């Protein structure tokens, strides 16, 4: 274990992620992992400081864990997963003696509240509404398309349906017709409905300390749910000043003193930026790993630094590279979904395997031949990693992967 720096804080990490623990163990802050009891034995065997805790809904006992961490001498709690964001808010409101943090966390956890707050803060958002059952969805779909002056029989513009409190693409559905509505299971309600925005969707990773953006990365989606790469192409990086302004609005609106946020935006064809949603935790699709590959700094360590009240500006200035200019190349990954219903083996196509940008894959060999049917956006089977100099070539390469079969 690295010697801890006594001048720095003691952090509690909420959630179990080996990548995160590995990175933080190598960092100079003292830490303790707070995670469910199934991880306890593994943690003990590997000398990982550990407190066992089951993150269910916030309840009376939440104060108990906050007090326990306070007694332990912990300065701040860092959430790793969507489900632990409200816990971090609750715990930090105790540790930092700032009740506002609890309310802030709840904003991040509820997509409808989040949108409303953004709208109140003067941030441009699409049309949205909450749905409590299928009839709400039908109604919203009809109203949106009426507003678009569609006649009966014209193909509908789609709407999006998202669970209130799930990360990323989990529970995200695209709805076009009444049949689509029929296919939504009742347990997915309540949910958030949004109008569809035609345009360029991308994500931002912003490291924030003292209400200031310390490092801002733009992740370019090639195709939502399939592929992403960092840093973005110059075409998208051109928007960086506007993006920075928007993030500053979020900092004001959501009253963010410190931490890490991961918002998604749309740029529409007429050049307007729309806010999609924001999360207060590491993004999916291994975006942290991509940032590390491109820039060489570890994003989990950076995140810990953002939360730690004892971090100095000097330390951060030394830690972060210059965005885009300091990147060693562009790192991207592609999520593979089997394309056939029946498969027998994993076969990386030669054109992928032999491409100089290709790094490695994390695709498992199939355990059974039948591919389960995807609902909503579903989860990919594993990621392919790429790294190279030219963002356009990388983008086209990631796009190209969509045509290929990785399971035959």
């Amino acid at each position: 274990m690295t010697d801890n720096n006594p001048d720095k804080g003691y952090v509690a990490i909420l959630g179990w992620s080996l990548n995160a623990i590995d990175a933080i163990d190598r960092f100079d802050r003292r830490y303790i992992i707070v995670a469910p009891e199934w991880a306890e034995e593994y943690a003990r065997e590997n000398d990982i400081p550990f407190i066992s805790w089951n993150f269910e809904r916030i309840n009376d006992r939440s104060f108990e864990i906050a007090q326990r961490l306070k007694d332990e001498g912990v300065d701040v709690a860092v959430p790793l997963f969507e489900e632990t964001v409200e816990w971090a808010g609750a715990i930090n409101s105790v540790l930092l003696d700032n009740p506002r943090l609890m309310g802030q966390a709840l904003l991040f956890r509820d997509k409808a509240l989040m949108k409303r707050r953004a709208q109140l803060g003067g941030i441009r958002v699409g049309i949205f509404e909450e749905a409590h059952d299928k009839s709400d969805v039908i109604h919203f779909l009809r109203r949106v398309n009426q507003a678009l002056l569609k006649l009966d029989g014209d193909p509908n513009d789609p709407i999006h349906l998202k669970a209130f409190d799930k990360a990323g693409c989990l529970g995200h559905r695209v709805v076009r017709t009444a049949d689509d509505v029929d296919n939504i299971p009742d347990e997915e309600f309540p949910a958030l409905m949004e109008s569809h925005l035609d345009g360029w969707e991308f994500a931002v990773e912003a490291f924030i300390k003292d209400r200031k953006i310390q490092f801002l990365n733009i992740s370019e989606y090639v195709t939502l749910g399939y592929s992403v790469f960092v840093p973005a192409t110059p075409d998208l990086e051109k928007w960086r000043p506007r993006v920075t302004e928007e993030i500053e609005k979020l900092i004001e609106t959501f009253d963010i003193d410190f931490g890490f946020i991961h918002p998604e935006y749309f740029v529409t064809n007429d050049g307007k930026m729309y806010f999609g949603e924001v999360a207060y935790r590491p993004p999916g699709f291994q975006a942290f790993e991509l940032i590390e590959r491109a820039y060489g700094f570890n994003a989990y360590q950076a995140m810990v630094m953002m939360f730690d009240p004892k971090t100095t500006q000097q330390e951060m200035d030394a830690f972060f590279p210059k965005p885009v200019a300091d990147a060693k190349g562009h790192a991207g990954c592609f999520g593979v979904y089997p394309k056939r219903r029946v498969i027998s083996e994993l076969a990386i196509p030669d054109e992928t395997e032999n491409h100089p940008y290709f790094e490695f894959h994390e695709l498992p060999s199939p355990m059974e031949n039948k591919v389960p049917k995807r609902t909503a956006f579903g989860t990919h089977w594993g990621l392919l990693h790429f790294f190279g100099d030219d963002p356009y070539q990388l983008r086209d390469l990631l796009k190209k992967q969509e045509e290929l079969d990785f399971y035959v």
Partner: protein
Amino acid sequence: MHAVTAPGDIDPLEEKLTHALHALEQARPFAKMRHQGALLDLSARLLQREGGLERLHALATRMDRAGLFAGTDWDTPAALLPGLVRHTLEQGAKQTVVLEILSQLRMLALAKGEAEHPNLTAQQARHFLTQVLALNLARIFAAASEAERVRLGGMAPVVDHLFHFLLDEIGYQQILGNLIEEVWRILAQRPIQLDHVKSMITQISIVMSQGGVDLGENRLGADRLVSALFGPTQGCLDDPGLAAYRQRLDAMDRTSLQQEAYGFARAMHDTGLVSDYHAVLVRWLLGNEQGELLPDALGLSSTGVDVLRSYQQLVHHLIEEAIHPRTAQTLYGLAMMLERCILYAPPIAPALWRQLALRVSANTGTLLGNTLGRDLAPEQQLLAGVISLLGLPLGVGQGNNPTCQAARALSMWSYNDPDYLLHIIAHAARFDGLVMHFEGAPLHSARLLAAHPSPSVLDTDPVSILLVPHLDAIYNEMGRLCAHRGEDPHRWINPEFHGWWVGRAFVIAVDVASGKLINFDAFLRQFYASYHPYYNGNQPLIHPQPAGIAVTDSRAQFVGWHAITIIRVALDQENVMRVYFFNPNNDSGQDWGNGVVVSTQGQGERYGESSLPFEQLASRLYIFHDDPTEELDEFDVPGEEIQRARELAVNSWAVNRLSPKS
């Protein structure tokens, strides 16, 4: 263009590998697993590049320390078993094969003292590698077997390279005993292509000359190999060099010359190896009007002498053109060609005169020069190859060519139809193409190759280098023409491709659509009734017949379909009825599992033949040809013989192929 700094001239793959290695090094022990796969993936790709193995050898210790083996059996090198290496390399998943290769490289670094390991001394590491090499000699001698080729794909050459690399680094001394036995086993099959074997013997001799090696009972065998190659006679016992030996010949009296001739001939027929000095002697004899010693120098029997006397001028011309120290091995082919008496067939001698006068095309010249070197004219290389192939029809091997059909055809023509072989050689060498007919329509190899060029064939003889691309192109085209017929294409290809003597009845044990056995008992019964002398009226096989076998590995598991030639069926010295056959694989001694071990010597085999007891061969057979005009008496074949062959089949390759129609 873009502000991102380019990695400059660092190779992208090297950069990625270095990054993955760095990530693994940094990771805490509990997180190593996540980074191992990426490093193995990247190593696999680097291994397949020129110089990749050497590069990874330099990195192997660092990879070991970084934790590449953490959480696997390879993490405790002291507990690794040399006997498992082969199985891993042949049967492992790709990542496991790469892990094994990197483990060997790590062992090598330990053995050489370039690195240290808490649980393994340099001496232990060296001992481990020695055993691995000794246990994988077959691999060192020849290219991969079908089993490995199919299994490993792009990694097969890497595994070959690994073994040679280890051998160079560890040295031959440790594994000499096994090596010597292996050399003798290979030589007993009298292959045409002996470069591997000769380089092994050279290594053996270097080690022996350094002294201090205890070879035990192998001493005699090793001495014979080394002397046969470097000093088989009194005159060159001290390996004086070719020029010095030539001078000595000038000073010898006739008795000494005769002794030299006897000595060379004995060594040649004893081992199948020809010394470069032997070529010097033969050329000297003809150049100094001592041609009457030629029969002694070739070690000819009265039959061979008869042929030599009948075609003296032709043979002298063949020697003048084709026999040089560089092609000394051709002398053995020449001797065997004379013994086969094929010169008495009317077309052969004139065809050889055509071969002597032949001027090859520019393309053929380039092709032969690129693969065989340019010390000799391409015409001379080709002629030497022709003589060797005519003398040793069963000595041809498929080299690195994954398809065995062409090698089998060359062998069959040399054996059975040598004037046709000479015809197509001359044609291809001059016109860069062959024409064969399929169901009345001509197929032009030149046009087919123009559309689908094929890679050069390596590690094989000059005739194969010339002809195999053309033959493969035609064979593939025939396959394409029958692809839609829903039956095994060999039904139509084999007779048209090989010759009129291939039986027109085509018997197959497998239903092509389902891959299941079909009418297997009837298949076996027909094979017995047609080929087994006890049940076919004691009729010996007249012409070599193509056949298809299901190759199995040493665990009796199915590997793939393979082409062989059935040459004859006869009793061995222990009164076991055996099928003697030709396998175009480079080394025919193979273990097919469940006790089915192909024999290449000691069971009545002639040079180059493989053999199995009749029922064992029948158990691996899935295609044979038969003459439909013969009336077979299938009821003579005892049911228990069929049953035994059937059981051997369904317990090996056919285990998952049973159906109601089987």
